[in-house]
C-alpha cells in the first residue's frame, strides 16, 4: 500500500502555497515576474480576456474556451504525472510538493458565486490584470471590488458554512 505523505498546511494558509523551503529574493523572484509576463501575453493574444469569449462559452456557441481550458488541463495532468513518476526536483534541488485540496462547502457555494461574477465581468482573477494592462483601465474598479469581496469573505469566513 502506498503511504501518502501528508503535507502540513494550516487551514488559514494560502491555497496556492509556496512550498519552497529555502528563501528567495531579488533575481530569483524576478523569474515569477517573467512567467507572469509570458502568461499575460498569452491571455491577450488568445483573446481569453475577452468578455465576448466568456459569453460564447456560457452560451455554448464556440468551442474556443473549452479548447483552451481543456488542453491546458491535459498538459497540466501530463506534466504533473511526469514530475511525480520521475521524481523531478525544483531548480534548487528540492522535491516538488503539491498540497491536496480538501472538500469544503465553499467549493459549491463560493464556486457558484464566482461563476455569477465570471459571466458578468467576463473575467476570472487572472484576466482582470491582463485586461487592465491591455488598456481597459476601468477594470481597475472591478479589481478593487474583487479585493473588497475577498476582504469581506475573510471578515465573515468563520460565520459562513464550510
Amino acid at each position, binding site marked *: 500500500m502506498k503511504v501518502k505523505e501528508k503535507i502540513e498546511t494550516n487551514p488559514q494558509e*494560502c*491555497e496556492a502555497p*509556496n*512550498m*519552497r523551503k529555502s528563501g528567495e529574493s531579488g533575481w530569483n523572484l*524576478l523569474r515569477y*515576474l517573467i*512567467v*507572469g509576463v509570458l*502568461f499575460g*501575453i498569452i491571455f491577450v*493574444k488568445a*483573446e481569453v*480576456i*475577452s468578455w*465576448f469569449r466568456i*459569453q*460564447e462559452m*456560457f*452560451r455554448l456557441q464556440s468551442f474556443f*474556451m473549452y479548447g483552451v481550458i*481543456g*488542453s*491546458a*488541463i491535459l498538459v*497540466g*495532468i501530463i*506534466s504533473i504525472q511526469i514530475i511525480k513518476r520521475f521524481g523531478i526536483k*525544483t*531548480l534548487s534541488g528540492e522535491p516538488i510538493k*503539491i498540497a491536496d*485540496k*480538501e472538500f*469544503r462547502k*465553499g*467549493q*459549491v*457555494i*463560493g*464556486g457558484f*458565486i464566482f461563476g455569477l*461574477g*465570471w*459571466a*458578468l*465581468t467576463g473575467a*476570472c482573477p*487572472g484576466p482582470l490584470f*491582463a485586461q*487592465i*494592462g*491591455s488598456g*481597459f483601465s*476601468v*477594470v481597475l474598479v*472591478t479589481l478593487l471590488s*474583487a479585493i473588497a469581496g*475577498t476582504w*469581506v*469573505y475573510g471578515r465573515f469566513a468563520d460565520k459562513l458554512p464550510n
Partner: protein
Amino acid sequence: MEQLIEWIKQPWPWYIAGPLIGLTVPALLIIGNKSFGISSSLRHACAACIPAKIPFFQYDWKKETWNMLFVLGIFLGGIIAAVFLSNPDAIVVAESTQEDLAQLGITDFRNLLPADIFSWSNLFTLKGLFFFVIGGFLVGFGTRYAGGCTSGHAIMGISNLQWPSLLATTFFMLGGFAMTHLILPYIMQWVGF
C-alpha cells in the same frame, strides 16, 4: 522575423494558447515549488494592506511575494501584448453570440471588451454598479470562498486530480450559465440597455 511578428499578431488558436497556459503548472513547480493560483493574490493584497486584525489575513504574506510578482507580470504582459503585438483587425465573435448580445443591447463588437459596458463614463451608473462593482465583488468573494479560481482549481487542481477542484469548477460553470441565461437578461434591462 517580419513574418514571425505578423503571425504572432494574429489571434492565437486554442491549441496553442491552452497548452502554453497548461505549461505554467510545471514551470512554477520547477522554478520554485509554487502551486499555480491567481486569486490568492487578492488575499495577499488584503493581508498586506488592510488586514484589520482578521485571522484570515494573519499569515506571512511576504512569503507569497512571488504571487504578487506573477500577477504584476500578467499586467505587464497585457501592456506588451496590447502595445507591440496587437491584432489590427476586430475580434471575431461567433455569429450566434453576436445576435444574442445584440438583442440584449450590445452594439460594439470591435474590441475584446464591449465599449457599451466597459468605459469610464459608465462608472457611476447602474451599468458600472453591476458590471464592475457587483461583478468584481462576486469574483473576489466567490473565489476566496471556493478556495481558488479557474487557475487554482480548474487548471492546477484538476491537473493534480483533485476531485474538490472538479466540483468547484463544475459550480463555476453552473454559476456562469445561471448568470448568462437566467439573470443577465434582467440586469441588461435594469441598467438601461
